[in-house]
């Protein structure tokens, strides 16, 4: 038979699946016949007799194949497909009616169009054909700026003339997806999109020739020439922008500020975060998030965020889609996320996408890197308090990668070096571990798995041991149904627990514990209907299980009575759909609706109270038993998410948004900052869900070809039924917590002004915020009124806030950063006078939060020194020298009063009350 070895060798350079489309272009002669277990060569002979095709194959391989087939007036292709089904043989047909039957992979009958270019870059995978499961190599990627990529086949364009181009943007060196990169064409009109969390993009354009621009954080700006013929895929590989020090980039696309529909969102990438000096020289994402306009914290060294006047429990913190309940280590001096594995941090302050829900104020979406898919590498850092190490590399080259990271403190060791018994009896330590695996199964399917575990333990000059643990795991399966539709199925699990152990006195030895488990199952879909509509929809289910608190004796001698609060359980479901509509090139609207349903479930006993009276132990009228799985309370309601954008010009736009959020889980804390002893409580028959409405409007203007961004955003927020506390509330081990909390009303409003310069030797941002956050408690019965039922400032009401983050780059290797922060002191309730009744001294306090602690200001300076930029060396190192609180300002962290000799004296505790120099060494190999 005919020999095709030479051809075969040639075609092995690139393999390509059988393309039925080719056959369709010819007027196909049809084949009929009954092939009853005939040998393949005979089968070929009969086919060649009926058609004008010539069939080439390897006789050694195919001589023994028996064909059993009955066909009637079928095209040759179908006949061959049927005949070769369930065998390892593939076939390909070229334009000259030659059929090549091969083993394993089908050959590519046409030459790759760039096979003769100098860099030998691979061709664009331009076809709508289905990938075969046997395909070993990933899809070829567009890497050349000069080459013209043809997408789709001529004549295959849909009748509408509109063509959808989709694919992934990946880093060429590591194969990691690039998130939030802008992919857009500028002419004839600007049409663009941003890559999602998988680096996926989809653009719908009229068929034609375009220059596709790709811009993003940490990648070199690049472009591709495309000829759009029909729907197709173009995988884009882009080069990483290696120079770490080049610029502070806050947003992926330079013109996103103006052109994007989204408002009230801040995006930080890890490079920006690294440049901001911190107290311990440790890169800390939460600390940087706190420098953004609209984000505040009650005190230094606390990671609890207050976003636009919301409470610390109103932020949904997602770590690769798993909820994190305590994002801090060691009282909040460190954030719980290892900077080396992070990729981006996105904070939604308003116009929260319908996909997210369950918290009133904000969503902080933290994503990790996928790991290097091309080669094994590592990085790490050595600091004064902690050290960390990250390893990453491919499991299967270009298809799957892992990343493993660990971080630990050695404050324990430091403590024990101090020649003081108190310190030697103390301990303070933490660690966190991250593991992430990503695997691209094929073009249509990818899976991602993340595990996270952190643990804190401290015992400082006391006999009480505090311990808390955060654990999360998430598993994601991404499936592309077509260029226009993809879905992600996510399962996530979060666990948080703390315990406070006291063992010194065996009579009182006991452990106080609290824990919460959350299991999520959600399906999210994105449908790029066309140029004008992008539709997101999905379903989200959460199961909560809360171990509300327990006090257990330790050891036989302990006299502590065991006290365990019943476990709380609940289900939260949500359905959402949103449509992003580009009405005209200037006007865009996003309409979203989320409907959430919450069900508090038994088994649990709840109490009934006398109506009209303040709930207290004294007004309990009845105990209601709920059986396992029985509903204790059900709440549900719609959540509206609307935003509009109108572009005034290419450089200016106005945006407005309205959104409603509902929150069914509440953090109970009678301390103003987040503390490890905070309790999370689910809504039940007494505690209503929190509902918040936010209206915001903003003006955005870019200058100097988008290198300077300015924005003014203003907002008004109303919050209903958020949790406030009666005076002197007891929260720990309270069997009837509803007697100590009240449902409060809140309102917040403010203006945020920001200017950013993103490029150049001098870059950074300046922001000023005027905002108020007010609370009112007057809905309850008389005893529950606070400050006479008037609005009063919340704990985190800090009207004036000014932040400056500045970087100046002297050279590629030296750069400096200077931070400056000023804000109004937080409100405080002060003792005003002392008086005597019944011969005992008593203290008279002001109205709640009627006074303020002194204003806060701080300046930090950092110097970054990069190692030399030689390509070949063992490890790339960099040094960061920083001084935190340069002026040594004693900002009060805590204020307290003590009665001493009949006087009442006030004291302030400042933790970072003087300049703190730090040095950190970071390395990468």
């Amino acid at each position: 038979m005919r020999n095709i070895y030479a051809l075969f060798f040639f075609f092995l350079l690139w393999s390509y699946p059988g393309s039925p489309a080719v056959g369709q272009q010819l007027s196909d002669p049809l084949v009929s016949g009954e092939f009853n277990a005939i040998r393949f060569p005979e089968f070929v002979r009969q086919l060649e007799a009926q058609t004008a095709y010539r069939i080439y194959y390897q006789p050694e391989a195919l001589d023994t194949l028996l064909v059993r087939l009955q066909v009637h007036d079928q095209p040759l292709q179908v006949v061959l497909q049927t005949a070769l089904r369930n065998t390892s043989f593939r076939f390909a047909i070229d334009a000259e009616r030659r059929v090549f039957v091969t083993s394993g992979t089908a050959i590519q009958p046409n030459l790759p169009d760039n096979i003769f270019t100098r860099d030998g870059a691979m061709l664009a995978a331009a076809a709508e054909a289905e990938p075969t499961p046997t395909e070993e190599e990933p899809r070829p990627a567009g890497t050349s700026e000069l080459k013209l990529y043809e997408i789709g086949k001529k004549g295959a364009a849909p009748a509408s003339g509109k063509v959808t181009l989709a694919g992934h943007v990946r880093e060429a060196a590591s194969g990691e997806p690039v998130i939030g990169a802008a992919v857009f064409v500028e002419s004839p009109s600007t049409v663009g999109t941003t890559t999602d969390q998988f680096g996926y993009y989809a653009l719908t354009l009229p068929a034609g020739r375009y220059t596709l621009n790709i811009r993003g954080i940490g990648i070199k700006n690049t472009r591709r020439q495309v000829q759009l013929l029909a729907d197709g895929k173009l995988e884009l590989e882009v080069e990483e922008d290696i120079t770490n020090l080049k610029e502070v980039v806050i947003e992926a696309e330079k013109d996103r500020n103006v052109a994007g529909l989204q408002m009230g969102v801040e995006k930080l990438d890890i490079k920006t975060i690294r440049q901001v000096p911190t107290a311990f020289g440790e890169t800390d994402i939460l600390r940087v998030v706190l420098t953004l306009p609209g984000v505040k914290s009650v005190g230094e060294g606390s990671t609890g965020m207050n976003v636009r006047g919301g409470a610390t429990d109103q932020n949904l913190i997602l770590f690769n889609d798993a909820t994190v309940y305590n994002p801090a280590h060691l009282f909040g001096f460190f954030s719980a996320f290892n900077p080396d594995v992070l990729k981006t941090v996105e904070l939604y302050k308003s116009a929260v996408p319908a996909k997210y829900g369950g918290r009133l104020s904000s969503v902080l979406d933290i994503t990790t890197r996928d790991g290097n898919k091309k080669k094994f590498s590592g990085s790490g850092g050595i600091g004064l308090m902690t050290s960390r190490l990250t390893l990453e590399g491919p499991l299967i080259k270009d298809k799957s990668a892992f990343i493993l990271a660990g971080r630990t403190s050695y404050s324990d060791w430091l403590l024990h070096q101090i020649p003081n018994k108190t310190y030697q009896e103390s301990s303070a330590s933490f660690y966190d571990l991250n593991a992430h695996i990503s695997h691209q199964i094929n073009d249509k399917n990818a899976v991602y798995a993340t595990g996270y575990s952190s643990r804190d333990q401290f015992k400082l000059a006391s006999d009480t041991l505090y311990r808390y643990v955060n654990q999360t795991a998430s598993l994601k399966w991404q499936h592309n149904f077509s260029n226009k539709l993809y879905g992600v199925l996510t399962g996530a699990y979060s666990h948080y627990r703390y315990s406070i152990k006291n063992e010194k006195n065996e009579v009182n030895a006991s452990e106080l514990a609290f824990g919460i488990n959350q299991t999520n199952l959600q399906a999210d879909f994105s449908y790029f209907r066309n140029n004008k509509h992008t539709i997101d929809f999905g379903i989200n289910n959460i199961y909560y299980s809360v171990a509300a608190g327990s006090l257990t004796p330790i050891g036989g001698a302990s006299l502590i009575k065991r006290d365990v609060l019943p476990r709380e359980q609940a289900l939260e479901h949500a359905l959402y759909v949103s449509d992003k509509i580009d009405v005209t090139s200037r006007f865009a609207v996003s309409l979203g609706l989320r409907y959430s349903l919450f069900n508090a479930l038994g088994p649990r006993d709840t109490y009934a109270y006398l109506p009209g009276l303040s709930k207290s132990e004294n007004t309990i009228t009845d105990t209601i038993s709920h059986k396992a799985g029985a509903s204790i309370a059900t709440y549900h309601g719609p959540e509206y998410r609307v935003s509009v954008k109108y572009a005034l010009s290419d450089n200016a736009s106005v945006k407005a948004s309205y959104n409603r959020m509902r929150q069914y889980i509440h953090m109970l804390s009678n301390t103003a900052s987040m503390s490890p002893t905070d309790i999370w409580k689910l809504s039940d028959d007494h505690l209503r869900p929190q509902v918040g409405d936010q209206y915001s409007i903003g003006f955005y203007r870019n200058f100097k070809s988008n290198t300077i961004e300015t924005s003014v955003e203003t907002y008004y927020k109303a919050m209903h039924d958020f949790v406030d506390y009666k005076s002197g509330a007891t929260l720990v081990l309270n069997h009837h917590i509803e007697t100590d909390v009240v449902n409060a009303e809140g309102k917040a409003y403010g203006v945020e002004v920001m200017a950013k310069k993103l490029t150049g030797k001098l870059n950074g941002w300046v922001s000023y915020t005027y905002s108020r956050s007010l609370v009112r408690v007057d809905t309850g019965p008389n005893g529950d009124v606070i400050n006479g039922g008037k609005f009063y400032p919340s704990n985190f009401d800090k009207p004036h806030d000014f932040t400056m983050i500045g970087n100046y780059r002297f050279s590629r290797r030296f750069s400096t950063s200077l931070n400056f922060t000023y804000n109004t002191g937080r409100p405080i309730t002060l003792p005003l006078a002392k008086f005597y009744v019944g011969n005992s001294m008593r203290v008279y306090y002001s109205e709640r939060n009627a006074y303020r602690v002194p204003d806060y200001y701080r300046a930090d300076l950092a110097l970054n020194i990069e190692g030399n930029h030689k390509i070949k060396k063992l490890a790339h190192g960099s040094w960061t020298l920083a001084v935190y609180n340069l002026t040594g300002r004693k900002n009060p962290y805590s204020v307290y009063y003590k009665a001493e000799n009949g006087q009442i004296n006030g004291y302030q505790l400042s933790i970072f009350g003087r300049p703190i120099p730090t040095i950190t060494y970071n390395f990468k190999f």
Partner: protein
Amino acid sequence: MNTHVSLRVRLLVWCTLVLGLSSCIETFEPDISNAPQSFLVVDGFLNSDGVTTIRLTRSLGLKAKTPPPVEAKATIFIEEEAGQRYPLTETTAGTYVSARLQLNPARKYRLHFNTRTGREYVTDYTRAKFTPPIDEVAWEVENAGVRVLVSTHDNTNQTQYYRWDMDETWEFTSAYRSYYEYVNNKMQQRTVNIYRCWTSQPSGFIKLNTTTKLSQDVVAKYPLLTLPSTSVKLRYKYSVLVKQYAQSVEEFAYWEALRKNTENIGTLFDPLPSQLTGNIHCLTDPSELVLGFIGAYSVQEKRLFISREDLPAAWTFETGYENCVRPDTVNFINVSVSFTTANYLPLDFLEGRGYTAHYADCIDCRRRGNNTPPAFWK
């Protein structure tokens, strides 16, 4: 477990650790100059069965060391709603007492007064209550300490809200007994006891309980006080006078708020203090804040004694004089110089050498109490 206070302690340690023992703590003196300098304080209650004593004082700045200034020469009377007035007369400055009165439980009463400067004040009208007698004040040994318990009941279910005050008295001795005194440049046998004394103080605790949850108006063994097993108060003999008051719901809430404010003095980590709203109003200037709550009720008292012999034999007590080291010796030659001031006193004669001696703070118990037992002591 007060985790918040201890959290602060921990932070302090952490702070000193991190910053190498630099001073993290400074005095905090906020500007509260816009707050009124001094509030009128009305202390007492309308005794529904006996003598009403009202003290008018003024509040003090937090730093003040002086006793509170009194509001003297006020015109003050108890007023029955649409009825009679009962005047109070000033005994010592700022203290006003009534005649022995028997108020009508069916009527409402209030306090009405005008200060010397002519400002007029009234309290809310309140129904006169009668406090049921205390059934028992008992004590028990629990958790290596002594607990004082109160029991009472009201068959008519009228009381429901109770408040208690305690006055504690105990016997104690100074560190060393002095047998000699140096008077008029002459050493002589001491005649007056300065070794054994008695001292009294209000407990300061606000104790409240309510029986609204119970089917009967019964308080059974409600713990009022806890004394650790090492307490100096238990060393010889201890006594506590428990005073019981029937409260209205409003007054109960007032004292509850005051109690919570007293237990924690405002830190950022402590529970939020509450602002007190009493029931006294200034008619001349309705915006003026007056501190205090004046209810109308009677008082019931019962006294308890606890002797050393009744307590576990193994208990050892603090003396309150732990800082007093061993006595010195004063040679004869130095006697006249050493004992000229009242701050240094001789103890005993030391054959051939002189006198043992110590500071008066360690010897003279009158510096901490009274050297004669109170009239009720037994």
